[in-house]
Structures are given as C-alpha cells and as structure tokens.
C-alpha cells in the first residue's frame, strides 16, 4: 500500500522536476547520506539524479556535492551494497546542505548485529571458536571445545565432566553468558560442569582476564560467551543436521536444527533445535572405567520478530543430563583413598556398559529468555529478562537402594538487564545500563548437608564509553554492584537453622586502549578489575567430599575477592606468511579464597583431613603465544604456548592446583579438490604438557601424590565437504591420543585413581541446508 502511495507521489514529483530542470544554476549543495539506525555515513553508495541523468559517488563521510541544480525538488535514487535501494526527493534551497536517511538492507541486518556486538564488547584479550571450529569439535563437552583456545585448560572429573579454566581460574571465578544470560547452574565444585548444550552455539568467545564492568560479579578470570546463530533474515527454511560417533565410549551424538522466516512477514522467524547424546563406560589404556556413561537430551526454541528499529525475541532451552561417576572415586575414608592411589590398576574393574549406577548425577536446566530492543532518539535500548531453573540431583552409594537422590538442589535465578547503546555524544559512543539479579537456592528435606538454603539479590549500574582518535580507540568503564545474601544455615549437633545476612558493595572499573597501527599490526592494552562475593559453599560448607576423602569447613568471615588485571595483546604479521600473537597478563587477586589444611576430625569412618577456607593475595602472571606460518596456499603450521606463574603473596609460595605450562604444534593441509569435493583438510596436532613443579611447600600435607608427570599426545584429523547436487555434506574423522598413551593430568580430579582416556576416534557429519 505504502509502495503504491510512494510511486504515485514520485509520478507527481517527476512532473515538477521536468519543469524546473530547464534552467541551469550554480548552487553547490552538499548532500549527506546517513544510516537511519546508527547515523553512520553511507559509503560507498551511488546517487543517481534523474534530472541530470547522472550518477554521483559518496565519499567516506557519506557526502557528495551537487553543483548544477537550481532550487527545487528533485528525485534521487540511492544504491549501495548493504543498503536498501531508495528513491526519494530532495528539496534544494540556496546552498543549504541536505541530509538523506538510508536504511540498512534487511538481510544485511545480521551483519549489523555482528558489527554492533564487536562494538559493544570490551577492549579485552579474547579468542573465539567460530562455526567451523565448533563443527570440528561437535560432540565434545563445552570445556573440551574451549581447550582449543590458547590460555584455556580444563578442570575435569574423568572424561565426561569438565569445566573451563581461563588463565588458571575456574568455577566461581569465571562467568558464562549463555545467549546473553549469565549462567547460574551451581558450579560449586570440580564435579559440576556447565549445563549448556554447545549445539545451541554458533560462536563461542572467551574473554580472558577480569571483565567485571560489563558482565558483573564473578568475571574475575574471564567470561565465556555462548552466542547463537542470528535468526534467519532471508525468508524460507534453513537448518542443520549433525551426527557424531565416538569409538572410545561408543558414544553417539545427534543434533537437528530447523528455522523458518515467513514469506508473508519476513520479520517473523522461528527456530527449533534439539540434541541427543548417549555414551557408555570410557576406556583408558587397558581398562574400562566403571560407571562412566552419560545420557543427555536437550532442546530449545526461539521465536523472533525483528524489524529494523525494534524487535523482540523469546528463547527457551532445556538441558537434561544424567552422568555416571567412576565407582572407585567415592572413597569411604583416607585409607580407601590411599589404597586407590597406590593401586597399579583401577580398584573397581568393569566391562563396557551404557548403564548408570550410583554414584551418579541428574541435572535439568531450564532457561527462558525474553528480549526487546528498540531504537530511540537516545540510541538503542535492549531489555533482556532471563529465568533459570536448575535442578541437580546427586545419587550417592548407599546400603539400601531406595530410588532417592541424597542431594536435591534447586537454584532459581531471575536476571534483568536494561542497556542503552547511546548515540554518539561529543565524539563518545558507549553504553549504560542496569543489571538486577534475584536467586533462591534450596535443598530438600532429608538431603545430606551440602549448601544451605539461601536467597540472594543484586543490583548494579554501569557506564562504558569509547573514544576514537584516528586509529586509536580509548575505552573507560565504571560499575557499581550491590549483592546481598540471606542464608538459613543448619548447624550444631541438632542441625538447628540459624539465619545469617551478608551485604557486599563494590565498584569496578576498566580502561582500554587499542590501536590498529597498520594492516599488519595491532595491539591492545587493558586495565580492568572485577570482584566476587564469597559463595555459599565457601561461607557455610560443612561436609565430606567423597572424591577427595576430606571435610571442607566454610568460613563466615570471608571478604569479597577483588581482582586487578593488566593485559597486553600484540598481533603482528611479518610479510604475508608469518603471523604472531602475543598476550601477556598479570593479575592480582586480593582476598583470594583458598583451602588450607586444618586438624584431623574423628568420624565413625576414622580420622579425616579437614580444610578451611582462608584468604590470601594471589598474583598470577602469564603469557599466551601463537605463531602461524603459511608455507603456501595449502599448508599452514601453528605453534601455541601457554605459561602461568601463580603465587601466594602472603605465604610467598606457589598456589596449588594451577595448570602446568604447555605447548602445542599443528600442521594443517587444506585444499578445494574440485567443485564436488571442497574444503579437504588433513591435520596433525601434538600437545606437550609439562609437569607442574611449582607447588606449595606444604603440598604433601594437603595433597597426595605430587602432580603427575609430563606427557605428549598426538591427535590427527581428516575431513572433506562433498557437494551432493547443491547440498553440502561435511564429513570428518578425528583421533585423539592416537597412540593410546597412558598419562594423567594435574587438573583432573580422577588423577588419584585413573589414567586419562585412551585413543578416541570420532566420525562427524554436518549437513547444513536451506530452501528458499
């Protein structure tokens, strides 16, 4: 309807122009084209002036000069890649400059979102796994995928439970943002992996170092951003089928995604996605590991209504997993643990099985997200609400099977973020907003003691501003957080409930500097800080850790941790073959919470070591280095190295449980063989992990045995994309630990009892499709 109206208007205007275009005047007028949405200059674009039958090109400021038209109205047609084609009329009067608004093209919109996200994310040491990397690693745990990023290692419980470690920090010191919502899924201990389905991600970014200003409390070690594929902008159907099979634990994984944008209403799009995973006992060289199977089933759905200047999105996801835990890891007392450590073979022997027995975990995580965005004269507003419901059940080994879990924890979290990306103001661009969070954590009557029931709430306000000075970008940010807890702690011989309240407030800041010196060289420098309040387990835990046969005792006097980090990244290309990236960081964490051994405690199972939460000042220094050399168009070699030195400043000693230094080498050959066979690749990766020798002087009192010895592993992969008609089919075959090497890793909790998994072959198939 509108289109008809416009064309009628044009016809009318054409008539007037024809009458005025008779005379020639010399009236230079500047015409500037700006994007309606973000006021960026429209460049490059061609402006066709009907009256002159002539085309002009805009310059970098989106401007052009018309110098041969008299006052009056004229029709112009604007064309530019990425912009909606536009026909409009302009009125010229004297030499008054004219501004014309042009919209981004609709299907270029997701590009805009990407651009915007780049703009929004802080100047920070970062790395990411794109769609191809995620496809190459599909079926792995989220932490297993992130291990490909230099500076990221994993803390694991065997092969199936793993969480990421960024620059030596993990769990409560790392923040995960799943689809823009901070993931709240009870990451109390090493045996609690993040409850996120990596198949919902299209891109995973890791921000290394403190990033508290934009992302809030707990972002001390870094942030993991799990980002979905943008909703389809092109009408029609699209989707992807992924299948993977693993030899080691005979695991099968499948995922399917289907999306649709409506022809009649292209702003409206829908997506559904689901994945299934089932694996059995995994195998270490020479042995099956009893009761280490897993089952996972996840699904999600998204509905989006996206117009150029406003839109809304609703996302729901359900993560559902059951995990078996190696039977020999739940030890009765210190002697049992010692026997397990000293045994040359796993104490609990087993055959292959898919069955899950006690001890096991069952977790269901729901996430509901609602988002609204709109442009205003101030800039772009985003309002994001998230609700998470996490239900964790732990089934202990008991004498009489009663079908019940001994731990039934429910954590509910509401989050709200209101953010304004304001329009340029005095040359400053930036964002400001508030974050609100409310949590309720409870266990069920009759559960074993673990985490007390508590409620918490938090509110924060932030402001981040950026300023461009030629090729230099400056950034500064400020935030203030308040966080409060109300804890109902059962204590004493009769487990009487005592109520405690804690309130914390903290300011954090960031300063960033980034320079694109030339096409070969850029660097950034970041000064940042972040904080976190002590967690409920650190304040109140009073219980036995079955895996480590020790009793951990909380400390109600703990103060918040405060981290200050400085990081410097330098990326430099020597010629067009050699590429280098160096990242140096230094981080000071005041009131770093850690465990120290205390007196032995007598129980009915004998004496146990007790551990108390204490605070010190930690100082972590490290470097990540990447060097890539392109031998020719097909062959590339990469060397990555990562080192970390972590000190306890008060004790003037090393910190315990820090990842050892490591180096990896990769050589990859890739080539398009023909129209039908594309993206063929073959690669070999070698990983060498040093023995961690930098351990506290009192290590033998705290932990036994000493960190495991160094190891070298070889991985290999082969893959190709076959075109079946127009349909691409990606197939790859990969092997990890190719030579079935026996080794243990210091950051694997099962290092006491078990070797790491042996050879694992993975066959992966990915079929992306679309019908328009």
């Amino acid at each position, binding site marked *: 309807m509108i289109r008809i109206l416009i064309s009628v208007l044009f016809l009318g205007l054409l008539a007037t122009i024809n009458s005025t275009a008779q005379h020639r005047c010399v009236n230079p007028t500047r015409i500037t084209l700006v994007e309606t949405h973000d006021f960026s200059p429209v460049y490059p674009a061609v402006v066709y002036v009907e009256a002159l039958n002539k085309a002009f090109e805009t310059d970098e400021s989106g401007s052009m000069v018309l110098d041969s038209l008299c006052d009056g109205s004229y029709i112009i047609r604007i064309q530019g890649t990425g912009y909606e084609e536009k026909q409009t009329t302009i009125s010229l009067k004297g030499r008054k400059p004219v501004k014309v608004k042009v919209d981004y093209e609709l299907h270029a919109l997701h590009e805009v979102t990407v651009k915007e996200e780049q703009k929004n994310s802080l100047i920070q040491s970062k790395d990411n796994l794109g769609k191809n990397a995620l496809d190459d690693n599909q079926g792995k745990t989220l932490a297993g995928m992130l291990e490909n990023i230099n500076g990221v290692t994993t803390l694991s419980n065997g092969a199936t439970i793993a969480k990421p470690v960024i620059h030596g920090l993990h769990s409560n010191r790392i923040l995960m943002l799943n689809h823009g919502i901070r993931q709240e899924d009870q990451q109390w201990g090493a045996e609690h992996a993040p409850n996120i389905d990596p198949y919902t991600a299209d891109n995973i970014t890791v921000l290394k170092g403190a990033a508290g200003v934009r992302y809030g409390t707990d972002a001390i070690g870094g942030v993991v951003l799990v980002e979905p594929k943008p909703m389809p902008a092109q009408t029609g159907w699209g989707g992807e089928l992924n299948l993977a099979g693993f030899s080691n634990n005979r695991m099968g994984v499948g995922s399917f995604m289907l999306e649709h944008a409506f022809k009649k209403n292209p702003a409206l799009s829908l997506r559904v996605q689901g994945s299934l995973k089932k694996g059995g006992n995994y195998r270490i060289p020479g042995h099956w590991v009893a009761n280490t199977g897993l089952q996972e089933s996840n699904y999600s759905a998204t509905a989006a209504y996206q117009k150029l200047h406003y839109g809304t999105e609703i996302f729901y996801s359900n993560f559902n997993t059951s995990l078996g835990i190696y039977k020999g890891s739940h030890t009765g007392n210190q002697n049992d643990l010692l*026997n397990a450590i000293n045994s040359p073979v796993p104490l609990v022997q087993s055959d292959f099985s898919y069955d899950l027995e006690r001890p096991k975990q069952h977790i269901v995580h729901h996430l509901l997200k609602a988002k609204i965005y709109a442009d205003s004269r101030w800039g772009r507003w985003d309002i994001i609400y998230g609700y998470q*419901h996490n239900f964790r059940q732990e089934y202990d*080994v008991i004498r009489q099977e009663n079908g019940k879990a001994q731990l039934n924890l429910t954590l509910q979290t509401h989050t709200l973020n209101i953010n304004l990306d304001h329009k340029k103001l005095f040359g400053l661009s930036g964002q400001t907003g508030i974050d609100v969070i409310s949590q309720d954590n409870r266990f069920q009557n009759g559960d*074993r003691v673990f985490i007390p029931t508590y409620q918490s709430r938090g509110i924060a306000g932030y402001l981040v501003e950026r300023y461009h000075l030629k090729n230099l970008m400056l950034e500064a940010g400020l935030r203030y957080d308040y966080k409060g807890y109300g804890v109902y702690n059962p*204590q004493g011989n009769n487990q009487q409930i005592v109520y405690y309240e804690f309130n914390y407030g903290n300011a954090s800041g960031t300063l960033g500097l980034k320079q694109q010196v030339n096409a070969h060289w850029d660097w950034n420098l970041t000064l940042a800080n972040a904080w976190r309040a002590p967690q409920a387990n650190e304040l109140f835990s*009073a*219980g036995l850790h079955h895996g480590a046969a020790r009793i951990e005792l909380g400390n109600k006097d703990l103060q918040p941790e405060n981290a200050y980090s400085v990081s410097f990244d330098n990326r430099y290309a020597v010629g067009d073959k050699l590429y280098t990236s160096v990242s140096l960081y230094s981080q000071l964490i005041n009131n770093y919470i850690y465990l120290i051994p205390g007196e032995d405690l007598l129980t009915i199972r004998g004496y*146990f070591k007790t551990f108390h939460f204490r605070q010190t000042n930690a100082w972590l220094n490290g470097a990540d280095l990447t060097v890539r050399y392109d031998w020719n168009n097909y062959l590339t070699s990469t060397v990555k190295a990562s080192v970390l030195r972590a000190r306890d400043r008060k004790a003037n000693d090393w910190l315990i449980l820090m990842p050892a230094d490591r180096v990896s080498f990769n050589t990859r050959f890739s080539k398009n063989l023909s129209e039908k066979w594309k993206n063929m690749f073959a690669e070999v990766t070698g990983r060498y992990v040093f023995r961690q020798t930098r351990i506290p002087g009192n290590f033998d009192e705290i932990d036994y045995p000493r960190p495991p010895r160094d190891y070298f592993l070889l991985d290999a992969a082969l893959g190709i994309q076959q075109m079946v008609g127009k349909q691409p089919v990606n197939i790859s075959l990969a092997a990890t630990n190719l030579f079935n090497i026996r080794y243990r890793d210091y950051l694997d909790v099962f290092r006491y009892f078990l070797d790491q998994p042996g050879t694992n072959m993975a066959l992966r198939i990915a079929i992306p499709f679309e019908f328009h």
Partner: protein
Amino acid sequence: MKPLIFSHALSVAAFSLLFTACKKNDPPIPVEEELITTLKLDVTATGFSKSFIYKVENGFGGSDSGTVVIDTIALTPNTTYNVAVQVLNEKENPVEDITAEILEENEEHLFLYNANPATGAGAITFSNGSKDDKGAPFNQTINFTTGAAGSGSLTVYLMHLPSDKSGTTPAAAGGSTDLEAVFPVKLQ
C-alpha cells in the same frame, strides 16, 4: 526413547508449575542418610557378658564429631570369647538398629578385625567368623582369643561392596569403608 520424552514432559510441567507454586516455605532440614554413629561389641564367655561401645555422635561428614565414647576392651588373658557386632544410629529416636539391614545384605558387607600387636602380649586372634549366604566371609559374629596379659588395640572395620571377601585388611578386601573403630585393649 519413551522415558526421555516422559522426563522432558515432566520437567516442562514442573517448570510451568514454578510460576504458580513459588511460595516460600520453611527452610528444609538436612539428614545424613544411613548414618552410623555407634559400633557395639557384645562379648560373651562362660560367666561373662559385656558390651563395649565406640560412638561418634555426629557420625561423619559434619563440622565436628559431637560426643565421642570409646570403651577400653578389658578382657582376661588366654581366653576365647564369642563376639557379636551391632551397628546403630543413635541420632534417631528410637535408636535405629542397622545390624538387621547389614545382615540382610550380608553378601555386600564384610566385618574385618585387626589387632595390634597381632600376636603375643596384648594381642587378640580371630576365628570362626560367620559366613554370608554364599558361604563367603562376613564376620558379623566371630571368636576372639586373647593372648598373654598386656595392652594393645583392636580395629573393627565394616566394608561395603568389597571386591575380595577373603581379604583380611581393608586394602586387600577393597570396597569402601563404612565404619572404622579403634578400641584400646587391656588384657589382665
């Protein structure tokens, strides 16, 4: 596949219920399931009957032990006694007798006895331990034969899911230790 769909349907139902049934209730009370607090040795011989107690009030996993009671096993040298073990949870009221449960699952349990010194003055030796339903060692009842006058110690273990029931030490028998009680011994 069916149970999977079912569990999903259930979880969605639970999820939608949350919005309606989110009222705050009283904080829950934790309970240590299958808690053992007490080991009791009922020792009898002709003209002799006595019980020795080893008790840690809070069992295990708490932040402190609570009241601890450890009797000294005082017996006559060079004598054979009949011994029966009782396992109790005295946190419960009335006291929960766990012995019956262990007897029922005798194939999954094993009592072990270790004396220090193993022979000579102050030692106890063991014989005639009871068997489980499959005829393998179980030792819920056993004979103690005391050595010459002197003092020493006796450790009683209850192993759960031992891998080798013929083992006479926890390391040899395997499984996880449900109970470890160390009594002082006085033979006079």
